[in-house]
């Protein structure tokens, strides 16, 4: 209880830090999509895009309804809950990325 309250206080006190820490499921994205998720050369950025757009893209990749080189193979490995969490995370970050 006390710990949860402290965690909340921490999150409130440090919006930048809290936002910068991706949930663990989203860490896998950072290997290619830039260390902050803002993209890397030919690989597009994820940050600052609406959560609904990111979730829909993952679902479409998984269903082979959206053409892709490797994202279909990746998207099929994640749960709805994980996709929602990482979409919300990247949506909350500024598009330019920061860390």
């Amino acid at each position, binding site marked *: 209880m*006390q*710990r949860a309250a*402290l965690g909340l*206080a*921490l999150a409130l*006190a*440090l919006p*930048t*830090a809290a936002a*910068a*820490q991706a949930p*663990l*499921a989203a*860490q*896998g994205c*950072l*290997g*290619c*999509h*830039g*260390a902050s998720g803002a993209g*890397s*050369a*030919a*690989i597009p950025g994820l940050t600052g895009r609406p959560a609904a757009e990111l979730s829909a893209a993952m679902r479409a990749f998984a269903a082979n309804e959206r053409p892709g*080189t*490797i994202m279909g*193979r*990746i*998207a*099929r*490995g*994640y749960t709805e809950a*994980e996709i929602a969490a990482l979409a919300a995370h990247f949506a909350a970050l500024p598009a330019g990325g*920061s*860390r």
Partner: protein
Amino acid sequence: MNSTLSRRGFLAAAAATALAMPSIARAQGAARLLVVGGGFGGASAARFARIAYPWLDVTLVEPQSRFVTCPYGNLVLAGERGMADINHSFDGLRARGVTVVHDWVEGIDPVAKSVRLRGGATLGYDRMILSPGIALRWGAIEGYDEAASQLLPHAWVPADGGQTALLRRQLEAMEDGGVVGISIPGNPFRCPPGPYERISMIAQYLKRHKPKSKILALDAKDAFSKQPLFQDGWKQLYGDMIEWVPLSKDGKVVRVDAATRTLETEFGAKHQVAVANIIPPQSAARIAISAGLADNSGWVPVNPRSFESRAAPGIHVVGDANNGAPMPKSGFVANNTAKQAVAAAAALLRGEPVPEAVYFNTCYSHVGDEYGISIVGVFRPTDTGITEVPNSGGVSPRGNLPDQRRAEAAYADAWYASITADAWG
């Protein structure tokens, strides 16, 4: 963490956390996370720890002052990249508050929770992330020891980059029409597609500069990662330049004579070559073995959720040294699982449960100019090990798909920039 202000905020929060949580507030200060090894696993762990758990006091021990990566080393062999493109400074980690110590860990005392450094110092820890990489099993191929590797480079443990540079010089010095011999080990070993990307990149160099030359790849197994894709690409791009000899066709090298550059296979065939690259059988790095962490396989068994050693509580072993099958021994897996290991270590320091995990890997390989292929995998821990998520992952499609190949080559370059920033940036 891109401003002084947020850094100060972190420190204030760390102090507040320490006051409120006596379990992590040691008399002498913050909980100590000691990271041993500054490669993809160790550097990623140290960086992630400072970003996600700023209340941790993070020290990284790595012998090299700059880290030379295995990934993209094959492009150096091809002349497509220089050594400067594949080595990374630790200044980024220092700027994030990591204490970087350039030394070797000579011994681990998991009971006293301390390590002994070659330089004489002793470092204590509360939790350790051990990412020591691999050892080459000298002598597993008769005649192939450290001295022989100065004539027949392995270029599989970059260290200061000397091995990669040596193999590159030998390829440059070779006359057109020479045979490049490559000996490839059985599973498991570091970077399963790596030898075949290396074959591809050497072929690319030879095709441009020494087109009468050949590559003789002698393999201790009958199948390899992305095999149909590699073999399609070899035929399309390099014709009959590459001969791959599997185990069942007497491909396993059992003996070498370094002085004459002769590779001898199981059934006695002797191949004298102009340049020999010997990728020998491997195990976890010596420090993991001497600390008693490895089992009879030579690799370190770990808890699939925390990566904590089965033999030594408090030591989380990540990267190529652990037995993470069916995950490959790749830089991506080291980067990705290092973060889970840090999250687990942080949770255990606070007396909290280890968080849920999902692991991810992507391995791109360059087959030729603007010709890339990939294998990806999503993995989850179970009570007994690690499994790949059914109906996900896999390799690039086969066929005449130049747009796909071009895109994947570009993505490979972007991947390297991204993941090295996520480790050393």
